[in-house]
């Protein structure tokens, strides 16, 4: 049918708006680079060739993308239920801290118990923290944005309190030198709680990969969670209900779907995703809670979800793009001896987000105008 083909054309346009936004953002970035008096071609070439031109680069990119996949899915999942969960930051803190605590407390458990236990604790912590705004929204109608923001501050303060309470004892070297912890941190988690780095897998497969590269098994967990989120949302009865509530609470209620139940469930699942950031940052990387280790990852998840159009696949791609920009930006900074500041990357990310919002709106209006049948 003719009509359908035209219709599809717009649907495709709507879907690729983020791509258009990225291209525009890179152009704007090029202008900024020229204004600082540098060569944009050189900068972008350095950025991309180092980030995705070799295995080490890819490893670094994926390592940086992993937590953003989790926090991006946090925002995206809740959004499908019509909720704006901007409490990923706080949910991430709580989940991660609890997982760390399990990791350095139950040190005599074997890995096949301790690793799953830590992962589940991380998810449970985030879920718990997200359940509060979920229940408040479902039962009393308090807006989730307000509650999640406030819960972020509570989580930040609470974990700060806890890290001081569970502060690692000073090492012998520190006692000798007479210094105290500069940045508060806990003891390291047990060896049995650590996730292997991808290096060990590549080594087993006889693939050349640097041992110092931090990308670890958590990346696979992130991909698994993205697939899980997709499966829940589009293939299950629960997802049908969650999306129905998101699209039209009145129609959902009419169809016998409990709006309250699904709001709480969506928040809980969304929060669990945020808590899983701990698998990358603690279980796969630092092995201990270090204050301010991952500040902002939860908030960046909002941008990732926006860029990924709240779809799990989009979130993964957006997180990888952010990983490329982060890592590539750091390299550019080194290569240009600091003449291109790392902040340029933040500018690029911000411009991308702005362009996504704008192009989304532009395309929407275009479609509305074109489809208008009176």
């Amino acid at each position, binding site marked *: 049918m003719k009509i359908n083909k035209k219709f599809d054309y717009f649907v495709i346009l709507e879907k690729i708006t983020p791509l258009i936004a990225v291209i525009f953002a890179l152009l704007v970035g090029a202008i900024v680079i020229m204004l600082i008096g540098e060569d944009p071609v050189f900068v972008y070439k350095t950025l991309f060739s180092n980030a995705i031109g070799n295995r080490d680069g890819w490893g670094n990119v994926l390592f940086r993308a992993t937590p953003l996949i989790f926090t991006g899915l946090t925002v995206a999942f809740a959004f499908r239920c019509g909720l704006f969960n901007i409490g990923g930051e706080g949910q991430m803190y709580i989940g991660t801290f609890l997982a760390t605590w399990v990791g350095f407390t139950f040190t005599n458990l074997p890995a096949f118990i301790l690793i799953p236990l830590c992962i589940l604790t991380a998810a449970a912590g985030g879920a718990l923290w997200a359940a509060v705004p979920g229940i408040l929204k479902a039962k009393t109608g308090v807006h989730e944005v307000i509650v999640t923001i406030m819960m972020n501050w509570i989580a930040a303060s609470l974990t700060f309190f806890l890290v001081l309470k569970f502060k690692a004892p000073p090492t012998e070297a520190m006692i000798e030198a007479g210094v105290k912890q500069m940045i508060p941190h806990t003891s390291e988690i047990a060896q049995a709680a650590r996730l292997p780095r991808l290096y060990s897998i590549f080594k087993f497969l006889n693939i050349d990969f640097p041992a110092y590269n931090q990308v670890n098994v958590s990346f696979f967990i992130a991909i698994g969670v993205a697939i899980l989120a997709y499966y829940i949302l589009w293939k299950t*009865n629960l997802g049908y209900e969650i999306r129905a509530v998101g699209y039209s609470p009145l129609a959902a209620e*009419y169809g016998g779907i409990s709006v309250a139940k699904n709001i709480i469930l969506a928040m809980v699942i969304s929060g669990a995703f945020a808590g899983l950031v701990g698998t990358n940052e603690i279980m796969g990387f630092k092995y201990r809670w270090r204050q301010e280790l991952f500040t902002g990852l939860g908030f960046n998840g909002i941008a990732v979800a926006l860029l990924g159009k709240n779809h799990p696949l989009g979130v993964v791609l957006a997180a990888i793009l952010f990983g490329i920009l982060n890592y590539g930006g750091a390299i550019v900074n080194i290569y240009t001896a600091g003449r291109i500041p790392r902040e340029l990357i933040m500018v690029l990310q911000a411009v991308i987000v702005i362009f996504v919002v704008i192009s989304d709106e532009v395309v929407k209006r275009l479609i509305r105008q074109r489809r208008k049948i009176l």
Partner: protein
Amino acid sequence: MPEIALEMKNITKRFPLVVANDKVSFTVYKGEIHALVGENGAGKSTLMSILYGLYQADSGKIFINGEKVSIANPNVAINLKIGMVHQHFMLVPPLTVTENIILGMEPKKNNIFIDMENATKRVEELSKSMGFKIDSKAKIENISVGIQQRVEIIKVLYRGAEILVMDEPTAVLTPQEVEDLFEILRSLKKQGKTIIFITHKLNEVKALSDRVTVMRRGKVVGVKDTKDTNQEEIASLMVGRKVIFDIEKKPHSPGKTALKVEKLKALSNKGLPAVKNISFEIKEGEILGFAGVEGNGQTELVEVITGLRPASSGKIFLYDHDITNYSPRSIREDKIAHIPEDRKQRGIISNYTVAENLILGSHYRSPFNKGLALNFTAINNHANNLIKDFDIRPSDKDNFLKSLSGGNQQKVIVARELYGEPKLLIAAQPTRGLDVGSIEFVHQQILNERDKGKAILLISADLEEILSLSDRIAVIYEGEIVDVLDPKKTDENEIGLLMTGSTANKKLSKAK
């Protein structure tokens, strides 16, 4: 030959998916009431939007009083003395009648202050000349819909309109208010104003207009002198085929009592009593129609029966089984089907596909849900079957509901609700905003269910619909049933009076 007030020549307006106006030529004589009729999507509103400057035509010319004009925006239209009364009133509720009327054209004192005295005087003069009794200092939020419409008319006249476009003005009125409106329009005509009257109610065309232009699929398919035509002819022009008007109904043979409502009370969203002590029964094979002006407790009554709103007291029985304050899901499981009055908000999820919408309410049950996952084979088969049985167009199960026409959206709802042999069907405003073809279809479906022995609760603001379908008619006013009537022994007039609470008049009309 009468003088021509407005002539639109060969107007073409294309939207990418549709030609909304295809070389439309439309002529209105000075001082006539001209009805513009057609189904939804026939292009009437587009044509009027072009006249009022809301859209620009791709090609074609507009002449006002013989002079070629180009109308770039509504301000130009107002300057050309074209006025439009929209279907949804454009009034500011907390402001007074006068303030609303002068809004944007305030008479000034010393060029700074609003000259309220003068404004009030002009508004009162205008309403007096029309024979309106309007308190010019009353706030819009405190006056009835019928009066609000008069305010809209005065607003247009205040701006000096000579050509008035009325967009489906009767959709929101009671039969008495409709009569009053017609009187107003006739007196405007006497004053020499030209009136374009958009409608799809054919009896109104006959009662009011001098000439009628019929549109179908973006084209003018007929221009008639009203006195030389009849409803059947106009209807078949509109639809493009013959339409059966008289609904054939088998005799009423009620069976067991299916639904029994006892002394039901419920509150509105604002916490005020909305349903006040309502009791009634519906038997198998019976249609009980609820007639009433909207906002008299019908919405709340349906929501209480379907579990969407708690009953504050009273009982609801489905075949002696107490279902009062059950959850919407368990009420659905007890086989009560519900065609909701608010189609867009309640009835459909516009971002879900046809297939997804067709399982709403039974999505969690076998065969659509197996274990944890949805069973897409069953869902798709179900969708394809219903699309075929109910002739849902376009016939693609993967279309989003928002891309379907109102009539087809309603078919999706009807198909879904009738699936699974409901014991009780609640149909609230089932044909609102639908075109003639779809109305016919929905009516047929409701009657089929009745003849299959189902109990049906019908709520409608359309008295014709209530009268032609119901076996008994309950009139609801301010949350109470004021009378139950036999449709064979009553008429729109009697019901209309009851609906507006005129019980004194009711006795009069009975005596008559």
